[in-house]
């Protein structure tokens, strides 16, 4: 850790001595492992060391960046020189400034981001995890074929330094297991010869965060076999229940729509909507980098701005965008410590179980997967290929596929009716399931 902090500091000094007025450096060292098992045998196994240094310099309000995988002092020197040279052809940009010194800093709370158990675990144990997961799924249902059964882990060291005097680093561990299954669809009619597939996974900063393998296997199997015999639904307008996976996809678009970059470029349907009511009071969306042990947590952002919790949507009202210093300057606001993207971005859980939400629907869709790139947060149009289970009289009835669901983000936000109570904290953008009052389904 001491080593990468020193290198980052040295890179800042090199840039200044090459003629830069300001310099920012991000240095990253990653150790990665992954294993994928098929038919009880290792199919692929990867181990690696990876380095990256990124230097951003400015001079006379002109800025440029350069990056390299070579962390030797000679290379860092050359890199700093390259960036300073590129600066000269840039236009002046009055909005680019380093963060104010009083915004820089490291959160004091122990974020519990590094768990040495992940690096200490022997390789054969990691292989066994993937093997056991495959075995469990194969024994659960004769129809199941395995596409992928894998375990992966990583440890990253990140160091940030700038010429405003900030220099600090942290370590973060991560591991995940994933099982992806398929099953032949032998149903008579259009599905014959078609394969249905689905996956389930678990991830966290420590091995103890992972769900029991038995649970992952049974969920992956359940999600696969329940798609067998799917039909195309009729074109209609009905309530749609988003499961935790599709809810996260929706929230991911929202995270892009509130990003300062898309706001100042006016390529977000939420541009100009600050302090306006955009959703019912039951909807609160938070970005919180200070949650101990969570995947998206960090003590400071990629500019060295100290981490803090941001309420993005508070009881239905758009409270803030998520910005770094440059975006904030463009918008005449203050950085939210969001350089490098969202941290733990989530919808505050409500009180209902997923079953309760489903049982509130007489005739509607339980949405389990979306596809295509038709979730356009820039224009606000939403039109995606979809799969799910049809809900009849409050219960999941039969699988549906080969249709689209469409609407606009604004309407969908206003129409969020019920928010579930359970969140799976296995990526940085997570959401409980929720229901949208009505959406257009284009099928047959």
């Amino acid at each position, binding site marked *: 850790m001491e080593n990468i902090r020193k290198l980052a500091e040295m890179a800042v000094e090199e840039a200044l001595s090459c003629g830069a007025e300001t310099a920012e450096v991000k240095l990253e060292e990653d150790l990665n492992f992954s294993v994928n098992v098929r038919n009880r*045998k*290792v*199919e*692929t*196994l*990867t*181990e*690696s*060391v*990876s380095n990256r240094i990124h230097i951003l310099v400015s001079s006379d309000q002109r800025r*440029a*960046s*350069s*990056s*390299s*995988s*070579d*962390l030797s002092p000679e*290379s860092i020197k050359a890199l700093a020189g*390259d*960036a300073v040279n*590129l600066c000269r*052809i*840039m*236009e002046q*940009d009055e909005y680019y400034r380093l963060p104010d010194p009083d915004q820089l800093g490291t959160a004091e709370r122990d974020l519990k981001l590094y768990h040495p158990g992940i690096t200490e675990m022997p*390789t054969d144990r990691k*292989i066994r995890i993937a093997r056991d997961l495959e075995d469990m799924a194969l024994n659960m249902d004769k129809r199941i*074929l395995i*596409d992928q059964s894998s375990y992966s882990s990583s440890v990253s060291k990140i160091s940030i330094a700038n010429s405003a005097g900030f220099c600090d680093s942290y370590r973060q561990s991560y591991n995940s297991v994933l099982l992806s299954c*398929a099953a032949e669809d032998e149903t008579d009619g259009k599905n014959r*010869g*078609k*394969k*249905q*597939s689905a996956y389930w996974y678990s991830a966290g900063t420590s091995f103890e965060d992972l769900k029991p393998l038995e649970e992952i296997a049974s969920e992956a199997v359940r999600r696969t076999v329940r798609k067998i015999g799917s039909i195309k639904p009729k*074109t209609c*307008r009905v309530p749609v229940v988003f499961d935790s996976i599709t809810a996260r996809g929706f929230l991911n678009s929202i995270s892009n729509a509130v990003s300062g970059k898309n706001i100042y*470029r*006016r*390529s977000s349907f939420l541009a100009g909507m600050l302090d306006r009511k955009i959703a019912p009071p039951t909807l609160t969306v938070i970005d919180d980098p200070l949650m101990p042990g969570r995947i998206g947590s960090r003590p400071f952002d990629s500019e060295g701005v100290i981490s803090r919790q941001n309420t993005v949507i508070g009881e239905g009202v758009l409270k803030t965008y998520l910005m770094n210093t440059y975006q904030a300057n463009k918008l005449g606001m203050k950085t939210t410590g969001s350089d490098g993207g969202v941290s733990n971005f989530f919808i505050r859980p409500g009180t209902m179980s997923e079953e309760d939400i489903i049982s509130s629907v007489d005739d509607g869709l339980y949405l389990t997967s979306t*596809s*295509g*790139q*038709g979730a356009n947060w*820039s*224009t*606000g*149009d939403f*039109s*995606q*290929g979809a799969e799910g289970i049809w809900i009849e009289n409050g219960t999941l009835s039969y699988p549906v*596929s*080969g*249709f*689209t669901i*469409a609407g606009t983000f604004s309407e969908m936000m206003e129409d969020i009716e019920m928010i579930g109570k359970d969140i799976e904290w296995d990526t940085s953008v997570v959401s409980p399931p929720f229901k949208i009052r009505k959406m*257009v389904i*284009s099928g*047959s």
Partner: protein
Amino acid sequence: MNPLPGLAREDIEGLLEFAISGGSEFAELFVEDRSSFFYLLEEGRAEKISSGTDAGFGIRIIRSGSTFYGFSNIITRDEMMAVASTLLEDVDGAGGNYTPPGEVVSCRGEGVRIAAEDLPPGEKLELGFAADREARKVSGDIAQISVRYGDSRQLVRIFNSDGAAVEDLRRQIFLNIRAVASNRKGTQAASRSIGGNHGFEYLNPGLAADMARQTAESAVRILHAPRISGGSMPVVIGSEAGGTMVHEAIGHGLEGDSACRGQSIYSGRVGEEVASGLVTVVDDSTLEGKRGSFSFDDEGTPAGRTVLVEKGILKGFIHSRESATRSGTVSTGNGRRQSFRYRPIVRMTNTMITPGEHDPREIIQSVEKGLYVKRMGGGQVDTSSGDFVFRVNEGYRIDNGRITDPVRGATLIGNGPSILRQIDMVGNDLGFDIGTCGKDGQHVPVSDAQPTIRVPSITVGGEE
């Protein structure tokens, strides 16, 4: 010729011999040196400019059918031996043949006249300024123009235990223009990209300006277009739409890795009729200057042209060494990787439906009421079922055999194999589009192409 600066031939031979010791079937060293330059121009100003280098090696060992892969940034003999040792700890087994690498066969991009890396960045910026000026003239509705330019130089060297020793220098250049049009009613965007394995002579300010004008005109047209009403209808996909459809709806299903695992809808179906007799599908990495072209793939196999579907009959799959071994055949030169950080997997290169016999005008005239797709947007396909969804970026209504009003918000929903069987007219034209294809977390440059084609009925998603 010295195979690698700082490394003697004995070092590479010693490494491969060590890696194959104790019973591996195959060992390989992949060394890469890449430099790249990129800028983003927005609102007429250079918004972002960067240069970078990336270098490292990857060692692959195959034993009893399992692949072990390790990589590092530090290109020294000691580091290579250390990575190989770590990988050997993870394996057990016996038996392997070793042929030392032969003389290095070198391809160093002879077709390139002006190497982009030799030019000052200011000259490259001129393209962006020319595009920006021209696009803004189109309409007062143009809210934003962004221009992305990138060039890269990638030198790869591959040595393996079967005696291969090759080096391939690849240059990529691309220009992307995105226009956003906006009025009180809303915002719409259009985008165009060109690029390939070329020197800087491929681009010039006049070309950038033409492309920018067309892009801006599209954005404005879509902005003023009504939303399409959904339903099933005949669809004509113009050659300008490029081959997103062939890439997504068929190409991924013809990749040998998913095919030999039984994950593709086409698994085990060679010799069967899988498409209309008008359809021939080819993957060709030998085309000069295309974005998916190279001299050797990332496993050292020479580039090739593979006929996948001929007049509707499935002929075969594209393969890497690994998928070929599993399927009892030989590599088609489709083993590619994003960088030394990844093991090679089966990838498309330049994939196309080859031209047919119909005049494109005749194809449009044959449709009474339907949709004409001029530019396709992004798409996604489930390879196990062949189900796909594509966004139409620029679409028009066809009324009584004529292209009429633009429509927005259309998506095409269907099943690749069934659309292929339905194609009933294939034009004598051919249009290319470029892209970056993602698979298993790896991104590689590709191009796709198709003639104008007619499908009698596709589900078109839109408004109720």
